[in-house]
């Protein structure tokens, strides 16, 4: 396999509603990523796009619908979809295009437009449930997260305030992100604990918002990086992904075993055997505050039930020993599902190339890990990147 680097990235604003069409959002993010890499569309050998359920945009064949904006016309092109995991997984698909030698340069573009679905995208989330076992109960998607959060809290005896701390950290981190939708410099733990109860133990400020947005990254082979003398590059040193059964009522939700398997796959490739020592910062998937903690444990960066302690002790703060979600994460920047690429893989790239500005981790970081999560609490994908 060939070495692959991220050599450019771009993203749009993340907002509850954007006027631009999916195609226009894709174009803006892709153009920005190409400009930052100093490349043009002619330099791109293959294009990968990522987007979550078609029902949000209301257009099936969504990959084909926004293809023009992704720069995929008359090129090898594919769309990938792994639910919420798409935010990181499309980069893995781009990586295999280049690592295999099939392409020297691959452009990865992710888009999500949740605002088109009226009055609220929640109504189409109903379509992900099993039609026989689950749908007659008229579930709301938040139920399953509430149930997972409750199991995690109860088994490990974790206090609600220790989970709220993650929401506070990420919404404050997001203040330094120019695309952020829900940054809040003044938010407190009490604000989170006093917010509206939606499905106990999930409260309003435990959840990331629905958003519109797009993001893109450019991937290139080592040859391209050398010949073009590209200085701003971060190497993809490990990738992994794994999925568990859709029959989620058959497993203990206390630990995301599928994330741990994906992490082990990525760490093996990256020659990481002591993740806590060898990884300098992390961008785990944080659509809910408890998910950051759950995923830190799945990524083997914290012992089971111990991730809340890391937050409480400041270890995961931007200037801590293991900064987590320095971007502001989904909790602070927003959650346009697949487009979270910009605050996951994108943030690793910007941090590792020293471009993060006010968000830059104050000490030197050389190795970062990012991860996304999706489907019925069953899918995890992991990317390790190095400076």
């Amino acid at each position, binding site marked *: 396999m060939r070495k692959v680097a991220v050599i450019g990235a771009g993203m749009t604003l993340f907002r509850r509603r954007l006027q631009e069409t999916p195609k226009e959002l894709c174009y803006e993010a892709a153009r920005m990523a190409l400009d930052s890499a100093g490349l043009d569309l002619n330099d791109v050998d293959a294009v990968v796009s990522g987007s979550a359920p078609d029902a949000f945009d209301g257009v099936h064949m969504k990959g084909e619908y926004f293809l023009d904006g992704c720069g995929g016309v008359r090129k090898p092109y594919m769309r990938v979809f792994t639910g919420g995991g798409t935010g990181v997984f499309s980069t893995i698909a781009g990586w295999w295009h280049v690592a295999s030698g099939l392409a020297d340069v691959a452009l990865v573009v992710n888009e999500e437009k949740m605002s088109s679905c009226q009055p609220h995208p929640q109504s189409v989330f109903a379509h992900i449930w099993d039609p026989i076992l689950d749908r007659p109960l008229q579930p709301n998607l938040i139920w399953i997260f509430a149930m997972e959060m*409750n199991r995690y809290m109860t088994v490990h005896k974790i206090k609600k305030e220790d989970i709220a701390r993650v929401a506070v950290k990420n919404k404050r981190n997001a203040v330094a992100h120019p695309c952020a939708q829900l940054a809040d410099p003044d938010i407190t733990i009490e604000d989170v604990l006093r917010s509206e109860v939606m499905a*106990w133990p999930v409260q309003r400020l435990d959840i990331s918002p629905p958003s519109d947005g797009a993001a893109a990254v450019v991937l290139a082979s080592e040859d391209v990086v050398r010949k073009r003398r590209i200085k701003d590059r971060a190497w993809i040193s490990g990738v992994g992904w794994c999925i568990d059964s859709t029959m989620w009522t058959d497993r*203990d939700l206390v630990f995301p075993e599928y994330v741990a398997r994906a992490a082990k796959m990525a760490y093996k490739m990256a020659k990481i055997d002591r993740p806590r020592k060898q990884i300098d910062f992390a961008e785990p998937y944080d659509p809910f505050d408890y998910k950051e903690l759950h995923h830190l444990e799945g990524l083997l960066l914290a012992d089971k039930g111990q991730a809340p302690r890391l937050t409480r002790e400041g270890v995961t703060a931007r200037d801590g020993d293991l900064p987590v979600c320095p971007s502001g994460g989904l909790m602070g920047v927003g959650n346009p599902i697949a487009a979270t690429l910009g605050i996951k893989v994108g943030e690793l790239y910007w941090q590792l190339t020293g*471009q993060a500005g006010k968000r830059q981790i104050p000490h030197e970081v050389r190795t970062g890990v990012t991860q996304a999560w999706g489907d019925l609490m069953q899918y995890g994908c992991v990317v390790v990147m190095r400076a």
Partner: protein
Amino acid sequence: MTARRTSWPGTELRADDLVLGRVTSTKFRPDARYAWSAGEAMSRFLEELQRGRLIARTCKGCDRILFPPRMFCELCFRPTDAWTYVLDTGTIETYSISYLDTNAKRISVPILVGVVSLDGASPTMGLMHYFGEMTPEDLRIGMRVKAVWRPPEERRGSVLDLAYFRPLREGEA
């Protein structure tokens, strides 16, 4: 986002911009209807629900009693072996107290919902369902519960033939 840029694409809309026609837009309301055949395992499962019973499948490969039942084992990747009944009592694995309905509308009387692992099935295997005859304060993980069935004439061959799970009373098996 890179610190080398000072502007970012995207034009924010307000909540009612589309509704009030302040921006040019178009609308579509899909009319999609579905009918699903339940398949072999789920058909038997639904028939048994109508009789007030919960049924599982055994797998000799992994020695599990699989609930909900399936005709093949996803781990051994072989056909499952036999039908077997499990009990309608079990343990609450997790739960939520929901103030949201299925469309995220706010409701004042919360829905009590959770996952119950069933006695007789392999550990942690169960189903999602409602809880009743208890208050939100009564609910806890590890609580023992028993199914309450709808009257036979009201059953339709659906997971709703089981109305909800209630607390298991002292002395009940």
